[in-house]
């Protein structure tokens, strides 16, 4: 563990495929890496009581969330043999079909990244105070709950 200040994990709006592609490209200079693994959370057009979700508006308790992301990061580095790790989460509006979370882990070996990505994503879902408001076509809404 170190005392580094938590990074800001949040990005305004959807995470673009260009951003994701650039992140991958940036790792080509790190030649000790032999395996990457990526998790992308995508906003699903759930149908609830005959109404279809159009987009999700994300809000968060940002200070606590960034501190939690930091803890998860530190825990993942201590549990798995990782070269690097990046986590991004959207705030604000993300349309169905767009990406709202991007987790990217890299290691010399594949087995580590398979285990690490599941650990990180499950920890985020359970412990990070982010709140998704699902907006329907008729502008009504409901608050999403992770299952």
């Amino acid at each position, binding site marked *: 563990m170190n005392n580094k200040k938590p990074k800001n994990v949040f990005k305004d709006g959807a995470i673009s495929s260009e951003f994701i592609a650039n992140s991958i490209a940036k790792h080509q200079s790190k030649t000790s890496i032999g395996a990457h693994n990526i998790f992308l959370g995508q906003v699903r057009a759930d149908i609830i009581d005959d109404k279809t979700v159009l987009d999700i508006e994300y809000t*968060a*308790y940002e*200070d606590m969330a960034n501190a939690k992301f930091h803890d998860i990061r530190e825990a993942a580095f201590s549990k798995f043999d990782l070269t690097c790790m990046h986590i991004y989460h959207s705030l604000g509006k993300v349309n169905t079909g767009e990406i*709202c979370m991007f987790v990217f882990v890299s290691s010399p070996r594949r087995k580590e990244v398979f285990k690490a990505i599941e650990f990180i994503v499950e920890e985020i879902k359970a*412990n990070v*105070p982010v*709140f998704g408001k699902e907006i329907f076509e008729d502008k009504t809404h409901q*608050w999403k709950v992770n299952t």
Partner: protein
Amino acid sequence: MRLTIKYFGLLAEVTQCSEEQFEFSGMLISELLETIYLKHPKLKEKDFQVAQNQIIVTNETEISGRDIALLPPFSGG
């Protein structure tokens, strides 16, 4: 003491504010919640956790007076 309580997501909708102050003389989170319920009885029906100084606490935790937030179920990712 004067405490600032933050509300998020669904809870901010119920209270119609993202934070507010309470004058409070008790010791425990459970006592603080009773004070909040007097103003916002509908919160009683809602599922939430309480964070103090950005750490999830229980009803029996003593209030240290900083950064108290009511957090509805998480739905990140």
